[in-house]
């Protein structure tokens, strides 16, 4: 390369035309730049210590407590606790302090343990040895002592200790190979390049003699972006500047491969490395259930406050007469009398405390545990285990389990998600002649395969598509060796990034290439000719083109280019365009992926100019992308079309079945792909996204060219509205989509296209978006998410280009695909294959939704039952905040008496068997739109709770009213009254859950009956002893005395029966009158598989 050309450009920069604030200067080896060149500004950077831990030994308790109480729920309970401590409240602070303490302690222990593990991990990383070049010698030091500017030696198979700029490598061409498995999951080897000026350095002395500074941007998390420049100072010479890009930057966490050792200089250290920046938190997603739960919470908070207000007001009304306020038998203390000013407020707070159990601390714990433990069932699922990959489903967040049961829109990527992403070569078309391997080669084709990487460039990262390229032997037979053919194969050979490795690697896909070096077999002319073509430039631009510029022996510069037909055709000036185009279109209809190949001959001057532009653009630290695009535009024109290839990407196993099930489950499936329409449509038909009966609506560029977008939209809308019984499918392409999404400039006259588009989409069960840019994928999602119904969306994809969509959707699912793990890592759930989505949604999603819905409703129900009698009791105790239940009962009701059965229910309930759910996807519709947590259902549960509470309280009231309860004439007191209600309460709410349980395993029996037994045993024990540490013995023998009374038994049985009756009747009537699909399925299952009779005792 001619560097003199660049010098001008570079020297311009060195003068300092551009001043950017967001950059740093790294002094390699901590050497000051020569005087006059630049001011030496020592900058302070963090050392290379990785701190992933949050706490230290000293700040753990205060910081952790602060973190925990920052959560509103915890704070609420803390406030209640403090109120209990400060003012005279009916219940002791223990009742809320103990559960709070428990929750806080458990969380603190968990977080402390995790932090300790992190500390240990940090330690081992920070102390691992690193070789640093100092004064020309290699010095071994610890990783955390590394500083920006240090020159580091890394040996093969070692991990880079920080972000480094490659200076030199043991390979003569200054390259090194790296795997980034731990960063983005891609196991393929990537090539990184040393700066030409330094790549010759071999010894430490040489490296140490380097005098240079690196200017680069401040750390940013994008793994694939790096902008910088190195200034090399040589004696008495003008400094030399070289551009630095992502291809020079070795990232922390990546591993050196196939290279003995490298020298590199640290630019980002410690917490500023790209890896550390990348593992920052993702934004938290909240499920619809959580939103409804919060809405219910607010309702309950309002109920709580209004209850307290009502009682406070009534209290003062009632106390108006002093004889009631302070009868002779019940005087206040002097102290209490004096505080009458704030008395009303303290009374209000006391009522709040009395009723605060309506929002129980244990609900959060239970929901957390349910989600955490429940998610194990997904990862344990054997059916979602893929033998080939050796991996099962993976849960990255358990917060969204139930959202899996609420999905309305599924957005799926095509390649790698619906299809195998395993390309099989079908045919190629060179200069209008079609070559089909099978036809020509008669079976010889399978002997030796070479592979070619097709690069599908996309801004999110390169997608590698390996093609089983079985051509070489065939084309040895090919009769005519036209120039085009020759060039065509050269192009195919050169336009890729496959490395030729010296040694056998484990990478199976790539193995083919070095069994027979591509140059050696199917270029019919001398193999040496290719060797004379040095790859002098490899580039790829944003418009899905990938090309190389080579210099032939004759001195010509050739630019070979391959890419999607839509990108190539507009830039083609000659070649058999028509034939190739026809062939390409035909292939697309058959569902094949096509790729076009073109070339361009460049003159020396053209080449230089291009180089110049590119270099200029590459050196820029700002707007580099934009400048590069401009530079590419200069190169990418006047192509000569060579031909096209077609490869097939087969559908994944059971993809069609899965899509069909999703359709039946009422989900709308959108396929988003960058492929051309015909290819995508063919795949969609194959995957049953579109069926024969589906009426296809097209909203493509072709159509909008004929009519205006406005007319097309309105026409489609009319069609959809006219016949809404039909099954519609919509095909839209990227260009039209952006036109639709573009804000309307023509004013309000035409209305908003978005709305019409959404209206059409709403009536289509399947939508295919083809020719989509990755960014558009997220836009489509945004559009649907923002529509007025706020449907729940699910995005599924396998590649890096799907990440934006996965992060954007309510639920993001990653396929552990061949294109690395980025999608799987950024997803909420990762599954090995598309077919697993069916079980994930229809079975697990359904179960989780049912479970958590019951959990939430039941929790509110049981606390209404618990607290409402207490509220009613205030009317009979002079609004004095007298608790109905003993402290122990108040404390333990939610913690132990009623917590385990619902937790277990929410873990193992299966209202319908797994097989039925899979067999009948339509059952999914029964729970659509958060149906179990809607306001009517919530109201029903709350009313049921109020009814039960009224039954408990007034039942006990009338039984107790002025009469004797025992056969020895003795009387019971207020604690017996409360205990009776509490016993009925515990039994009722537990039996109510038993009535709701459809799946009685031995664990259910154990927990439900066990928890009732526990209540009885606890009560016997609690009342059986004079507890020495208590200052009151109010419960002494109360429970036993109650049990010794016949009427108490009778009334307990009666009250339980009455409380459960309405719910049973409601269930039976609903099932008989208007059974849901689920209920029908339950009965069918019963008769199907487990036909036994039973009598369900309501008591």
């Amino acid at each position: 390369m001619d560097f003199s050309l660049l010098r001008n450009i570079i020297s311009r920069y060195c003068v300092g035309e551009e001043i950017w604030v967001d950059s740093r200067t790294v002094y390699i080896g901590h050497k000051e730049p020569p005087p006059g060149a630049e001011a030496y500004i020592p900058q302070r950077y963090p050392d290379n210590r990785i701190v992933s831990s949050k706490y230290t030994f000293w700040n753990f308790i205060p910081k952790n407590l602060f973190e925990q109480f920052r959560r509103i729920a915890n704070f609420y309970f803390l406030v209640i606790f403090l109120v209990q401590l400060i003012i005279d409240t009916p219940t002791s602070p223990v009742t809320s302090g103990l559960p709070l303490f428990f929750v806080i302690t458990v969380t603190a222990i968990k977080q402390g343990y995790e932090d300790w593990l992190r500390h240990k991990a940090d330690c081992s990383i920070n102390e691992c040895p690193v070789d640093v070049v100092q004064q020309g010698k290699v010095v071994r030091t610890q990783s955390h002592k590394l500083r920006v500017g240090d020159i580091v030696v890394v040996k093969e198979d070692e991990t880079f200790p920080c972000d480094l700029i490659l200076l030199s490598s043991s390979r003569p061409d200054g390259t090194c190979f790296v795997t980034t498995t731990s960063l983005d999951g891609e196991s393929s080897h990537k090539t990184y390049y040393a700066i030409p000026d330094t790549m010759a350095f071999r010894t430490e002395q040489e490296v140490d003699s380097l005098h240079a500074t690196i200017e680069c941007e401040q750390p940013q998390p994008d793994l694939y972006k790096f902008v910088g420049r190195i200034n090399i100072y040589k004696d008495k010479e003008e400094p030399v500047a070289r551009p630095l890009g992502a291809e020079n930057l070795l990232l922390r966490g990546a591993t050196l491969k196939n290279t003995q050792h490298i020298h590199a200089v640290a630019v980002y250290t410690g917490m500023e490395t790209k890896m550390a920046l990348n593992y920052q938190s993702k934004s938290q997603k909240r499920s619809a259930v959580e939103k409804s739960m919060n809405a219910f919470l607010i309702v309950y908070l309002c109920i709580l406050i209004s209850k307290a207000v009502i009682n406070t007001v009534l209290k003062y009304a009632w106390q108006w007469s002093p004889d009631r306020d302070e009868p002779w038998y019940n005087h206040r203390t002097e102290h209490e009398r004096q505080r009458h000013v704030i008395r009303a407020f303290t009374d209000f707070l006391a009522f709040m405390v009395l009723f605060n159990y309506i929002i129980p601390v244990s609900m959060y714990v239970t929901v957390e545990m349910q989600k955490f433990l429940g998610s194990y069932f997904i990862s344990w699922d054997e059916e979602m285990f893929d033998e080939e990959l050796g991996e099962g489903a993976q849960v990255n967040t358990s917060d969204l389990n139930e959202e899996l049961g609420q999905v309305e829109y599924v957005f799926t990527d095509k390649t790698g998600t619906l299809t195998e992403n395993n390309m099989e070569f079908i045919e190629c078309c060179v200069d209008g002649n079609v070559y089909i391997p099978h036809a020509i080669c008669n079976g010889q084709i399978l002997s030796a395969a070479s592979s070619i990487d097709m690069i599908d460039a996309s801004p999110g990262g390169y997608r590698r598509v390996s093609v089983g390229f079985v051509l070489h032997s065939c084309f040895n037979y090919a009769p005519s060796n036209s120039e085009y053919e020759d060039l065509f194969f050269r192009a195919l050979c050169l336009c890729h990034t496959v490395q030729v490795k010296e040694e056998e690697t484990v990478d199976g896909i790539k193995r083919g290439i070095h069994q027979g070096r591509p140059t050696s077999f199917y270029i019919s002319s001398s193999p040496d000719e290719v060797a004379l073509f040095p790859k002098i430039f490899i580039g790829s631009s944003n418009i899905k083109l990938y090309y190389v510029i080579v210099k032939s022996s004759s001195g010509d510069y050739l630019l070979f280019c391959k890419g999607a037909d839509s990108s190539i055709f507009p830039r083609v000036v000659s070649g058999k365009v028509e034939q190739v185009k026809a062939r390409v279109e035909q292939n697309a209809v058959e569902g094949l992926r096509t790729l076009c190949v073109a070339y361009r001959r460049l003159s020396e001057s053209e080449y230089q100019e291009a180089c110049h532009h590119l270099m200029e653009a590459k050196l820029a630290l700002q707007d580099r992308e934009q400048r590069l695009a401009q530079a590419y535009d200069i190169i990418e024109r006047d192509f000569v079309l060579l031909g096209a290839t077609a490869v097939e990407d087969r559908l994944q196993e059971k993809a069609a079945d899965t899509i069909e099930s999703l359709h039946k489950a009422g989900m709308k499936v959108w396929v988003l792909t960058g492929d051309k329409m015909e290819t995508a449509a063919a795949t969609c038909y194959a995957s049953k996204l579109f069926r024969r009966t589906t009426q296809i609506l097209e909203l493509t560029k072709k159509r909008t060219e004929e009519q205006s977008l406005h007319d097309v939209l309105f026409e489609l809308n009319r069609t959809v509205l006219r016949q809404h019984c039909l099954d519609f499918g919509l095909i839209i392409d990227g260009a039209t989509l952006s036109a639709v999404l573009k804000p309307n400039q023509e004013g309000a006259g035409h209305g908003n296209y978005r709305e019409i588009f959404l209206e059409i989409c709403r009536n289509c069960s399947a939508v295919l978006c083809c020719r989509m840019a990755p960014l558009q994928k997220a836009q489509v999602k945004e559009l649907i998410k923002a529509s007025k119904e706020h449907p729940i969306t699910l995005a599924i994809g396998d590649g890096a280009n799907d990440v934006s969509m996965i992060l954007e959707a309510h639920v993001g699912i990653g396929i552990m695909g061949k294109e690395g793990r980025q999608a799987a890592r950024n997803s909420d759930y990762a599954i090995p294959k598309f077919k697993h989505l069916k079980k994930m949604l229809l079975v697990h999603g359904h179960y989780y939704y049912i479970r958590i819905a019951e959990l939430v409703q039941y929790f509110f129900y049981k606390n209404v039952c618990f607290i409402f009698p207490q509220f009613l009791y205030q009317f009979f105790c002079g609004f004095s905040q007298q608790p109905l239940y003993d402290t122990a009962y108040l404390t333990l009701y939610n913690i132990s008496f009623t917590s385990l059965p619902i937790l277990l229910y929410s873990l193992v309930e299966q209202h319908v068997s797994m097989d039925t759910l899979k067999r009948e996807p339509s059952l999914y519709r029964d729970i659509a739109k958060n149906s179990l947590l809607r306001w009517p259902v919530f109201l029903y549960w709350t009313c049921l709770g109020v009814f039960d509470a009224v039954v408990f309280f007034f039942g006990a009231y009338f039984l107790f009213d002025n009469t004797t309860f025992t056969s020895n004439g003795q009387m019971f007191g207020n604690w017996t009254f409360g205990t009776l209600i509490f016993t009925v309460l515990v039994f009722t709410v537990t039996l109510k859950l038993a009535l709701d349980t459809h799946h009685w395993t031995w664990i259910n029996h154990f927990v439900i009956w066990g928890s009732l037994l526990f209540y009885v045993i606890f009560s016997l024990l609690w009342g059986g002893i004079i507890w020495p540490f208590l200052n009151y013995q109010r419960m002494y023998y109360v429970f036993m005395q109650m049990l010794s009374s016949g009427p108490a038994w009778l009334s307990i049985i009666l009250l339980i029966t009455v409380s459960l009756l309405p719910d049973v009747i409601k269930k039976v009537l609903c099932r008989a009158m208007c059974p849901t699909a689920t209920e029908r399925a339950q009965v069918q299952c019963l008769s199907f598989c487990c036909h036994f009779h039973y009598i369900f005792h309501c008591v």
Partner: protein
Amino acid sequence: MMASSYSAKDEDGHITVSGPGGGTLRNKKPENTAFKQQRLPAWQPILTAGTVLPAFFIIGLIFIPIGIGLYVTSNNIKEFEIDYTGDDTSSPCYNCAQNFSWNNTKSCTCIIPFQLDQPYESNVFMYYGLSNFYQNHRRYVKSRDDSQLNGNIDSLKKPSKECEPYASVDNKPIAPCGAIANSMFNDTLKLFYNDPNGTSVPILLTSTGIAWWTDKHVKFRNPGGNNANLTAVFQGTVKPVNWHRPVYELDTDPENNGFINEDFIVWMRTAALPTFRKLYRIIQKNNNMAPTLPRGNYTLVVDYNYPVRSFEGRKRMILSTISWMGGKNPFLGIAYITVGSVCFFLGVVLLVIHHKYGNRNNSANISN
């Protein structure tokens, strides 16, 4: 709002750092156990009209007889109630009620004649009843010191703060302390049978066995053991302000004196509702064949010490017999009959529904 913020997961995103050569190899194949695959054998009951039907009939068939039994039993119980509050000028206790003063050292006595229309067989239980008396008021309920009542000497000398403002007088501890003890019911009720021949026969009222056995023997204990000299033990304490006698003079029987006085224990068990009754005395059945309380005229003699007019309360005396199911309470019986009938009726309704809908929906699935 709350639920999301509660999430125990690390929302501050911790950094997973893999060290050099890090990477765990493990067999990721999930275990094929029934629990992990959610395939535990299970009983899958479904509440359908067909399956619930028998339950309803059974409940109906069980509840109705129980209800009838309870109702009949309740009706057989004899109960007599007399209000002696004395707020009415015609009431014999009017004067006592009017002239009540805390400073009266001499108790006012009123005599109330009444008539029993039926003879009371077996043991008769004599209750006093109070209305509009909030024994369940929070300030009242907690105003006691169980430790003191359990015979703890320290608590005797230094009552709990809960007893305020009835904890001490002139720095001398009150024993028993607290509002409950202070307001102990202190009317004395005596019962006389007016023989048809003109003589007035006092009826023997047993004052033991009215409190819970466990209360009397475990929960309540005199300080220094039950045999100690109570006068000496309670030295240094003062009686509750409203009491006429100190606690160690409640009864002459040492087994029923001090904290273990049964009247006192009964009072200390606070009632659940503002209208309540407490067991006062038991009239034991005599050995002979005569009814405990024969039909005829009686006189109730009340030492009127307990003021209730200030808070519009009422005082009653109740005589009641007791069955196995306690005192007179028709509610339980009626409730059982009602629920039983409703269940039976629902059973019939469900039977109709089951025939109409059940067969249509799932033919022969549920039917036997």
